[in-house]
């Protein structure tokens, strides 16, 4: 076919309509390249059809282009998303730092509390140790003073063995200082007095036998070393201990004579 035959065939119109077969399409395209008149004719047909289509519909609303743009190039949203992501990282970092700080503070607070309670305990221990030392020193001083008394050259030691009918196992010792009129009585060998009773100590003159009360062993149970100090002792030739009702008696109850000794 030559150019005029192509133009007259009516196929160029159908080519623009898009209703030709693939093979016929190829022929037209080849002819358009070969004959400028064919190409020109196709473009004229296209122009007419385009104008026709433009005239038979209402004008396109501007909204359509806006919608197309939004759908295809909605790029703003993507950028916003990225910004949000960055902000999120910062926020996460901030939160993580806060959490770490809180954990750290809590840990330090715990440590401080532990140290404080340890300190208090140590102080308490120190106090207890100090008290022990003081009491030990006091005890030592007491023992030393006792020892000094016993070593005094004027001291007379008197054994008071148990009085067989009442208390054969009992015994006591008297350290008598005539010059200071003082008696240290070691009553460790005596049993605890029954409820409502008390030991009473007597100074004895032998000729005639005269007992004089020189004291009651009150608080017998509470004194650990069972050493009692008695003062203002009259001149004595012997000592005895009886069990009497609480408050003591004016004269010794001889049935309850526990120990007796003579200088």
């Amino acid at each position, binding site marked *: 076919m030559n150019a005029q035959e192509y133009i007259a065939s009516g196929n160029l119109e159908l080519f623009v*309509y*898009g209703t030709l077969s693939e093979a016929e399409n190829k022929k037209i395209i080849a002819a358009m390249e070969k004959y400028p008149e064919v190409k020109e004719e196709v473009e004229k047909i296209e122009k*007419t059809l385009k104008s026709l289509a433009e005239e*038979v*519909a209402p004008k396109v609303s501007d909204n359509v282009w806006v919608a197309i743009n939004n759908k295809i190039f909605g790029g703003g949203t993507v950028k916003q998303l990225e910004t949000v992501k960055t902000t999120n990282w910062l926020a996460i970092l901030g939160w993580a730092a806060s959490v770490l700080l809180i954990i750290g503070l809590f840990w330090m607070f715990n440590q401080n509390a532990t140290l404080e309670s340890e300190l208090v305990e140590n102080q308490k221990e120190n106090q207890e140790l100090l008290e022990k030392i003081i009491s030990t020193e006091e005890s030592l001083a007491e023992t030393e003073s006792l020892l000094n008394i016993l070593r005094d050259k004027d001291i007379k030691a008197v054994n008071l063995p148990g009085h067989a009918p009442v208390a054969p196992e009992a015994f006591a010792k008297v350290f008598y200082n005539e010059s200071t009129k003082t008696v240290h009585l070691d009553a460790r060998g005596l049993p605890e007095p029954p409820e409502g009773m008390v030991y009473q100590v007597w100074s004895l003159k032998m000729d005639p036998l005269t007992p004089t009360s020189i004291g009651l062993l009150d608080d017998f149970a509470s004194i650990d070393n069972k050493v009692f100090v008695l003062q203002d002792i009259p001149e004595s030739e012997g000592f005895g201990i009886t069990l009497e009702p609480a408050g003591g008696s004016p004269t010794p109850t001889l049935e309850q004579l526990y120990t007796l000794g003579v200088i």
Partner: protein
Amino acid sequence: MQPDELITLLQNRDQRAFSKLYEMYSESTYGIIYNIVLDQDLADEVLQDVFIKIWEKSSTYSTSKGRFFTWILNIARNAAIDKIRSKSFKNSKKNLDADNFVHILEDQTNLNQTTDTIGLRAFVKALEPLCRKVIDLLYFKGFTQVEASEKLDIPLGTIKTRNRNCLKSLRNSMGE
């Protein structure tokens, strides 16, 4: 003239080229779509879809296959027909039969009102009834010659020629 440079730019994802091509082809594309769906809102939707498709599928167009205008025309016709099918228009067949671009020209008052097309519009209205039907079926509705021949009950051999003569008349009236 076909804007081959713009088309190449479009195929390279150039937004400005796309915008320019929209300016050039949106009205005619809308005309095709409107003649099929016969509803402005639906035509708006379809035009959107068609140009999104043009953007996304631009790489599938090649000058060796045909005209860019024809490529768009095919996309538009298919999209419009899909739309009225998906909307399950009860009267779609009837609409396709009864309404053609001439009726639209007569019915609508809000059409493009440019002075240089007044002559065209007048001549379209003056077209022979058979011309209107042939152009409507082949161009706007995308019928094949065989389908149009059966539909209009005229010999297959005369469809092509009749169509050419009808279009030629239109062209002449446009001052060529």
